Each structure stands twice: as structure tokens, then as C-alpha cells.
């Protein structure tokens, strides 16, 4: 018998029991839906993160107090011994770290910035003058503060692109305008290029000022012996192949400076872009395994549901099977008919599941502004194939049973 014919019969049988068909598909719908949704969200996250790293600047090392496992630098407990400006100066010494092309320090904290009655809460980066060089970052208006500004603790500030937009809604020329940071007047000397969000937060929603000004006039975060505390030290390395060596040299230097004994663990961390990408890769890997488990379990449940309902269907349609055999259906004809029915059921469940997952992905994309879940054609295709294969597998037993029915018994069945 032709497959088209079997497909038509299957569609008719499924349509005759719509509610039951949908309930049977539920396991597959949920399984496929969850996989499509989570997979596209996972891809969205991956893309988002990759985009962020692309904006970081190349060959960059981050030195931060504490270990990565303690969480992001800004959230690490105070018990961790802070980094200081002196640490940065030591790293900048070419005799200790010859491959460090440039070095900058950054102290990060939240501030409120006010202009013309409008106040925004943003992150302040109090940095050394080399910051834009290390981050490979230009200004769109004005220029970054100079070493002189830094030495004189000038109250000057640069705005991130978003911060500028918010404080200057009419696109006024910002340079030499006055803003208040935590109620202290600062002169705007420039606006940074838009860079988008990064692992340490959205840099466009920041302001940038000299570390000296910040620590002496605004935050007053110094170590007991009067050194400037910093959150992160950025080191840009001259060649990417020198990164591991530089990482080793900085580790050695920092261990000496912090007096860490030979066997003790580092109480600071040096992270390269590749390390960060690897961490996210691990997270995504775990997510994928988790997804696989969800998919496997729900497809198993869905498959058993299909087998169950197909067995019911075979029993209900015993007379039909008997009749078909009486008028000439061979075993293979009946087998194929019920296999196709099980596969159609599963594939329909797969379609509905894709629709469900896609809707969820869209929902998440709309809920989180600049994040976009990516629904891949390959994910859809794979889901449908797998769902259909589940139908095939769990349909074999009921279909085999149907094909073995004796037409005489089947015709007599009430």
C-alpha cells in the first residue's frame, strides 16, 4: 500500500479523536518545546556573551582580588585583600612584566549623576589615564583626562554613550558642561564611544573620572597605609602568544607583593578573555547536558504515551483491521499504517512543541531588551526528526500487534 494512503488513513484516525491525540502528544510537545526554547535562549546567551567579549579589547588580562569562584569583582566580600594602585605600578614595570604593553587600574562603584534636575544612577570607573589605551577605546567628543588632570585630582568626568543620552536629551555639546556626581560639581570633558554591555556591566551606562580624584574627593577608599584601592587592573599584552607567559609573570609578582607562601593559594585572579569564554562555555555545556536530560525524559514519557494510545487504538479498531485484512491487506500494509499513524502523532506533537518553544523564545527576547533568543533551523529540524523517530520506535510494538491479528478473530471482535 502506498505511504500517502497510510498517511491519509492516519490523519483521519487522529482527527477523529482530536482531544485524545493532543493529550497523547503532550509529552512530546513539552519536551520539544522546552528544548527549542532553552536551546534558542542558550544560543542567544552565547551570542550575547561573544558580542560582549568582542568589545573588550584584544590580548587583555584582568587582575582582580579573590578567585573567580567568589563571584564578579564588584560583589566579592571585603575580607579579600584589595588590589592597590601600587600593584598596578609594579605590573607596569617592564623589568618584571616585559610583555605588558600598557596597564591601567580601575576602581568601580555606584554613583548618582545629576544635571539640570535629572539624576541617573550609574557605575563610576575611577581609572588611571592609560585606561582608554588599554581598553582600545576612543572618545566621540573631547578626550580622556591626562596625567596632569590625574596628578592634580581635577574634577573632570567622561560620560558613557548612554549616560550622555540620558543627561543630554537634546544632544547638547557636552564638553565643559557641569554635572554633579554625588552632589559634587564635575566638568564634563568628553563622551566615550558606545561599546555595549560587558561582563562587568554595561559600560555605556558609566562615567569615567581620575582614580586620584575619585579616591581623594568622592569615595575615599584607601588601604590602612593610605594606598588607593582598585577593583581591577587591566594589562594589555603586546602579542597574544605571550599571554600565558605574562600571566605567569604577573602571578609571580603578585604572590610576592601579597606575601603568599609557597604552598598557599592565590588570593587574586588573572583572567584572560579566553578564560572567560571558557567559563561561559562550561556553563553552556552544563546547560546542554541539562537540556538533553529534559529532552530524553520527556520524549521517553511522550513515547510511552504514544505506545499506550496506539495499543488502545489497535484494540478499538480490531474490526477495521480484520476487514482490511479480509479485503487483502497484507501484514506489512497494516504494520505500515499503524507505524505511520504513530509517527504522524509524534511529528504533530513535534510541530506543536516547536511552536510552543518558539513562542517562549520570542517572549524572552521581548522581555529582555538587547538580548535575542536565536531559534535555529537545525534545532527545529532535529527536534522534528527526533520526535518522529520516537513515534516510530514506540509505534513498533502496537503496529506489530495489529499486523499479527487473525482476520477471523478480528472480524468477530465486538
Amino acid at each position, binding site marked *: 500500500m502506498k505511504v500517502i494512503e497510510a498517511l491519509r488513513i492516519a490523519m483521519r484516525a487522529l482527527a477523529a479523536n482530536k482531544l485524545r491525540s493532543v493529550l497523547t502528544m503532550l509529552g512530546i510537545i513539552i519536551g520539544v518545546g522546552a528544548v527549542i526554547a532553552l536551546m534558542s535562549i542558550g544560543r542567544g546567551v552565547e551570542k550575547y556573551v561573544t558580542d560582549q567579549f568582542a568589545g573588550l579589547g584584544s590580548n587583555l588580562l584582568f587582575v582582580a582580588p579573590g578567585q573567580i569562584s567568589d563571584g564578579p569583582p564588584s560583589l566579592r566580600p571585603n575580607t579579600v585583600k584589595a588590589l592597590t594602585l601600587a600593584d598596578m605600578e609594579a605590573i607596569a614595570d617592564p623589568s618584571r612584566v616585559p610583555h605588558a604593553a600598557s596597564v591601567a587600574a580601575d576602581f568601580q562603584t555606584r554613583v548618582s549623576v545629576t544635571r539640570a534636575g535629572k539624576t541617573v544612577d550609574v557605575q563610576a570607573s575611577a581609572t588611571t589615564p592609560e585606561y582608554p589605551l588599554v581598553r582600545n577605546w576612543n572618545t566621540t567628543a573631547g578626550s580622556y583626562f591626562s596625567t596632569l588632570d590625574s596628578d592634580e585630582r581635577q574634577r573632570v568626568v567622561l560620560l558613557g554613550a548612554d549616560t550622555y543620552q540620558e543627561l543630554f536629551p537634546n544632544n547638547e555639546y557636552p564638553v565643559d558642561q557641569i554635572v554633579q556626581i554625588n552632589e559634587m560639581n564635575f566638568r564634563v570633558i568628553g563622551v566615550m564611544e558606545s561599546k555595549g554591555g560587558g561582563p562587568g556591566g554595561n559600560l555605556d551606562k558609566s562615567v569615567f573620572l581620575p582614580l586620584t580624584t575619585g579616591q581623594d574627593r568622592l569615595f575615599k577608599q584607601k588601604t590602612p597605609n593610605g594606598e588607593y584601592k582598585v577593583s581591577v587592573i587591566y594589562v594589555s599584552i603586546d602579542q597574544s602568544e605571550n599571554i600565558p607567559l605574562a600571566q605567569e609573570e604577573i602571578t609571580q609578582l603578585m604572590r610576592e607583593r601579597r606575601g603568599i607562601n609557597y604552598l598557599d593559594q592565590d588570593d587574586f585572579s588573572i583572567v584572560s578573555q579566553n578564560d572567560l569564554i571558557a567559563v561561559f562555555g562550561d556553563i553552556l555545556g552544563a546547560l546542554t547536558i541539562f537540556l538533553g536530560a529534559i529532552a530524553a525524559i520527556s520524549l521517553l514519557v511522550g513515547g510511552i504515551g504514544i505506545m499506550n494510545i496506539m495499543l488502545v487504538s489497535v484494540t478499538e479498531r480490531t474490526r477495521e483491521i480484520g476487514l482490511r485484512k479480509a*479485503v*487483502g491487506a497484507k501484514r506489512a500494509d497494516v504494520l505500515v499504517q499503524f507505524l505511520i499513524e504513530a509517527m504522524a502523532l509524534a511529528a504533530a506533537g513535534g510541530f506543536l512543541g516547536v511552536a510552543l518553544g518558539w513562542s517562549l523564545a520570542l517572549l524572552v527576547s521581548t522581555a529582555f531588551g538587547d538580548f535575542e533568543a536565536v531559534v535555529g533551523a537545525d534545532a527545529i529540524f532535529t527536534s522534528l526528526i527526533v520526535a518522529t523517530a520516537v513515534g516510530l520506535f514506540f509505534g513498533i510494538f502496537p503496529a506489530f500487534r495489529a499486523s499479527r491479528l487473525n482476520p477471523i478473530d478480528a472480524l468477530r471482535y465486538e
Partner: protein
Amino acid sequence: MEQNGSSPVISLRGIKKFYQMGDVEVRALRGVDVDIYPGEMLAIMGPSGSGKSTLMNIIGCLDVPSEGVYELDGKDVSRLKDDQLAAIRNHKIGFVFQSFNLLPRTTAVANVELPLIYGGVSGRQRRQRAEDSLRLVGLGERLDHKPNELSGGQQQRVAIARALVNTPSMILADEPTGNLDSKTSIEIMELFQRLNQERGITIVFVTHNPETADYCHRVVRVRDGMVESDISRRATAGIYATGGEPPSAPPSEPQEVQP
């Protein structure tokens, strides 16, 4: 097939059928010899449990005998496998059942197409032949009606159309009027008779009903798995061979069969 009936369509020799029920062996058929010739219209009668249905199932190739030889159109079919039997049923036998056995929610024409699907006939030709067959039984106006939109008599006509559609060597009907009222029964029997007389189709009935048997020119009585009597009202070999008039139909006025 021999036109003048010189060789039988069905030849049963020493047919036995045993069923094993636990320790007990049920001897449903205990040696049946029957020849049925082309163009015959024949009734198998007998008390309940005498083996009529068992015999019918063997003749219809739904089952094979435990012993004996069954030749259908000169070919031994008594030792065939399931799928070979299915192919024979598809090409050579049309079934009509007491309970119609139509597929629900399926149009008359689709029901009639069923044997053609398994016979590998292509879509358009299938529809054409199913329509022709339905017209032949007087249901040309009801092609797309579903079983629940048809009366019992009309449903049985659909079943007869389905039995005819593959131009089989014979039609087997097990109590075809068992579920019908007497007026509809007469219409159905007259339809069978017309098909037999006008088209020379061989028809074998199983029936309890003597009035059904009256339409047949040969009655085989079965008892305890054996043929008790085999009575022809006119020489079967002579019906068409003599070129004479067809066997006179017993009771009732010849009624309008076409709608």
C-alpha cells in the same frame, strides 16, 4: 475461467478442520467434499455449531484446512501463508458480512475503494471503479454518504459494491440479511440474484433463513462438520451451458431493484 462451467471454481476434497481447545480437540469439519461451479448461487445451511462459518472461512481463504485439499480456480490454496492468502482474497473473493463491516466516518466510495488500495490500483482508476460498482448496486446517488447517513439496506449495498469492485471469482456472504428487516432482505436477495443472473457471478451464502435459501438453485446442508445433503433444483452444469433461461427465481414478484 471456464465459461460453461465444466471445471469448478471451488473444489474441496476431504476438508477437515480441528481446533485445539486446551486438552480437547474440537472437530469443526470432519471431511467435506464439495465442488462449486462458475455462475452458481448456492446456500450453505445447517444448525448452529455445525461448521458453516468454519467452512466459509476456508472457502474465503481466511483460514486453511487442517487436512484436505482446496483448489480455487484450479490452484491449490490449502497450504498458503498469510500474505499469499491475503493476495488471493484481494483478487478472487468478495466478502459480504452480516454486520456490513463498513469503515465509519468514511464515504461510501472510499469504503468501496478499499480492496483496490490493497490491489495497488492507482487513485483515479480506483475512484472510477468504485463509482461504477456503487452504480451497479443502485447507489449512484449516494457516493459521498457516510455509513451513518445510510439505511441498513443501503449499507449492505455498499458492502456488496465493495465485494464486487475487484471483479472477484466469487462472492461469499455470511448471513447477509441477518441484520435487515424482511422487505429490505428481499431487495438485497434480489440484487444478489440479478448480479448472479446478469453477470454470472458465483455467490455462496451461509444462512439460517429458508427464504434466503429459496433464491438459490443449490442448497448444501451441513451437520456435525459433514455434508448432510446437497440438493440442486436444476442441473448446475446446465444453467448457462444449455443457453436456456436462467433458473426461475422462487417467491415474490420481481421487484424494482434499481432506485
